[in-house]
């Protein structure tokens, strides 16, 4: 009886220490060098190589793709929509898109129905955005949102999440940039806070400026999707950094088998928040410590 037990223990140990299946060669295609894409590859290389994966750089659409590296790789990682489009044009290797907005990923996937492709998207789940609002401002009950053409499909998801969170959604749809002032005024008049969505129409620099100016006028804080938006003047934002996305990808790789089975399209489980203290003070809001807020949000998601 001792031998089989020992065998079992050995098997378990080997499963724990050296997952037999998990070392892969990954070809990374970036939309362009530098900036956030660079931060992503660096994080991926550090985390991936720790897990035994081989990370190779297979070019950018601008400087050309290394098709040899792509065809040899177990998985292609395309960072950004230009990279994804370039990869899908030349290869049918399993591909995971990262650093991409959900709506853009869906558009590209529809154009390439036969591609084996999934994504870790930048968009934060509706529940997470609302949880941020509720955690930062527990008294806020009416949440305003402006939907542009690129984000109109998110309305039902936000409606559902709002119903679960116990807040009311005050939505306004825009079809052109000229609709913004009126729609903004209507939302700010009836909502306690405004969630800014990453829509080209609603979050262009000009529109973001108008939204923030309006938000101060009505004393309604803006909750946004990026650190830059908080620097510009939003009260708070929840977002996944390039490192969060790389960590999500590596965690999936570490747990996957050969041949690779692509994950479902999803947002990273890890995320970060940012708070603009000056805006909080100007709007006379008493907001807790960032770490405590982040812990509360993370704890809420684990439940």
């Amino acid at each position, binding site marked *: 009886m001792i031998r089989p037990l020992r065998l079992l223990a050995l098997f378990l140990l080997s499963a724990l220490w050296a997952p037999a299946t998990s070392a892969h060669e990954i070809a990374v295609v970036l939309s362009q060098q530098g900036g956030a894409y660079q931060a992503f590859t660096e994080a991926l290389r550090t985390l991936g190589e720790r897990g035994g994966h081989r990370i190779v750089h297979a070019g950018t659409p601008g400087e050309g793709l290394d098709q040899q590296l792509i065809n040899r790789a177990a998985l292609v990682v395309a960072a950004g929509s230009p990279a994804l489009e370039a990869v899908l044009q030349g290869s049918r290797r399993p591909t995971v898109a990262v650093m991409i907005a959900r709506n853009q990923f869906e558009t590209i996937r529809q154009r390439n129905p036969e591609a084996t492709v999934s994504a870790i998207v930048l968009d934060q789940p509706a529940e997470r955005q609302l949880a941020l609002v509720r955690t930062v401002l527990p008294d806020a009950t009416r949440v305003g949102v402006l939907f542009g053409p690129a984000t109109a499909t998110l309305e039902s998801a936000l409606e559902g999440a709002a119903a679960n969170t116990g807040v009311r959604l005050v939505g306004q749809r825009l079809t052109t940039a000229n609709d913004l002032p009126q729609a903004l005024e209507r939302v700010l008049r009836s909502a306690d806070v405004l969630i800014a969505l990453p829509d080209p129409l609603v979050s262009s620099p000009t529109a973001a400026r108008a939204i923030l100016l309006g938000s*101060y*006028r009505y004393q309604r804080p803006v909750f946004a999707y990026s650190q*830059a938006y908080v620097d510009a003047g939003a009260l708070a934002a929840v977002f996944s950094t390039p490192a969060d996305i790389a960590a999500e990808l590596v965690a999936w790789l570490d747990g996957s088998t050969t041949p690779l089975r692509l994950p479902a399209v999803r947002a990273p489980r890890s995320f970060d928040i940012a708070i603009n203290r000056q805006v909080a003070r100007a709007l006379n809001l008493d907001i807790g410590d960032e770490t405590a807020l982040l812990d509360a949000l993370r704890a809420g998601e684990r439940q």
Partner: protein
Amino acid sequence: MPPPTPCRHIRPALPPAVAALVGITVAGPAPASDDLFFSELPIVASVSRLPQRLADAPSAVTVIDRATIRASGARALSDVFRLVPGFQTFAGSDKPVAVHYHGITDQDYAARTQVLIDGRSLHSPLFSSGMNWELVPVALEDIERIEVVRGSNTTAYGTNAFLGVINIVTREPALVRGLSLAASNGNQGVRDHTLRTGGALGEAGNFRLTLQERRDDGLDHRLDPHPVGANWRTSNRTRTLDVRSDFQLGQHDYLEFSFGRAESRQLTGRVIRASGAPEADNPLRNLDQASTWLQARWLHSYADFADFALRYTYSADTLDNSFVHPTLGKTNPYGGRGTRHEIEALHTFLPSANTRLAWGASWRRDTYDSSTMLYGMGKVTRNIGRVFANGDWRPTHWLTLNAGLSEEYDSIAGSHFAPRASINLHIDQENTLRLGYARAWRTPSTLDYKAYQRATPATMEWVGNPDLPAERLKSVEVGYLGDWRAWRMSLDVRHFREQVFDRQIMRIRPSAVPGYTVQNVHDLELRGYEFQWKWQPFDGTRLQFNHASIRIDAMLSPVGQWLAVAPGNNFSGRVAQYNELSENSAPRRSSSLLWMQALPGGFDFSVAYYRVREIKWTRNTDAEPYNRTDARVAYTFRNGARRGELAYTMQSIDGRHAEERMERIVERRHWVTLSLDL
């Protein structure tokens, strides 16, 4: 956001206006969605643009928003200030409208309360360094909000902010789109027309443009019984062109250009009481005034904790009411041309997480040219330079300290130094106590020093007083601010003691030689309290109650004491009358109540009620106590993206009363306004 460190925003030179991350320029075409997550955005929450918490403010502040302006039923901007405790104004007629805080009237143009529009002072060298309320260069519809600082703040706003500040912020061009048309038609000749439009200028710019004309027949003249022809109605017409544009250049730079023109035509003059015939040396005639202005402003935000603003303003004002005088020939009393160039640099930053500092300097060049008022003198130029610093420090959550100082050099009035300090104690999140102390100066106008106006070819009407000192203020105040958010209620109380030394009065003849002068005859003590209570019991209901109680005691200044006993002047025999002019220049008590109510079906309704005790606007006039009720009903309709509003406004529902002097009767005035947003 990490707390800013002191070293981060001290930079030797302004960096170029280019910011790129992931190769995306901020002002470029709308980026694709995934780029949005990592692209930079213009810094909107720059330290000078973010509103200061009322609980941290060094003075009592009344904020008037768009909804309040609309609900007040005001047609003229001056009428809005009836809703600010401690302010006085009157319905416009043949006498230029004035808006005063805590009285001290006498001049046609209020010079002791600073009026700013988007940082530009509206005070003019032509209008006795005061504000001409007939030439308001902005339509009410374009005002975003008005912040009225009740209390002296010359260290932040300049010499005219002697007793208070009216700070008007206009609509951001980014928030104005499409075309709006409005027309009003009512009794007493009310005919108003407005065109407003706004749009994008390229990828990163916006503009808004407004054209407005307002007309009415003014007020009746009451003489009992009426001699034929003695009832002369005034007539008013004002026209405004207002253009504001802005450009966001990259992440850090914002440029603003604005220009405009305001014109006014009124009937002026006097009639002889007995016959109703016009006076020969002051006949009934048109008074034409105009103000043209231009402003450029550059705001550079280093980051959200430091910015630098540079502003240049030019304005030119003209007044023409010339007529042929029996002995002087063509003459133009108070007329002429005044110009102003002003440049101001302002650096605002946070040296630490709980300190804010704004310091800067400005240079101003005023000219005044009038062949009647400055006879034979040509153009008079005046240069004024100013350096100032204001800061606040919050050492702990229950305490805010504010302090400011300024030094002003004036080529005519000399140099003046002014300090200010206040302590705000935050008892808790909802209750704040404030103690404030300020010293300030108000420098007299160019005309007060230099006037040379003839009465006849051989005698003088008005001569300048080169020895005139600046008026001096010492102010102590205790304030309380309650902000009960759960109840949607707030209360602001201000108790003040303001001492004004060398208060100046016009038309005093110091000797038997003809020729009036301005003399610093009084020292005043103003004491009283003001409060302002706001409550929003329901979403659709807003209530506001304001009250002011003030007592002014006038004493003779050393100059006044000397004039009171000196022979031959026109002061010694009328000391009591001048005393009255100072002591009754503000009503002992004044209150106002505003009720704004949203109704179902797109209707809303508002009532404003005012109670004002007697007041003396000039030496020879009185106005008895009056009550006044204004009301407005509006119906808003929508047709797709188009919006329209039909409104009916009635002023002085309680009927005939006088506001400025007993001879000018304010009667019920009502009009209908239709506005369409296309």
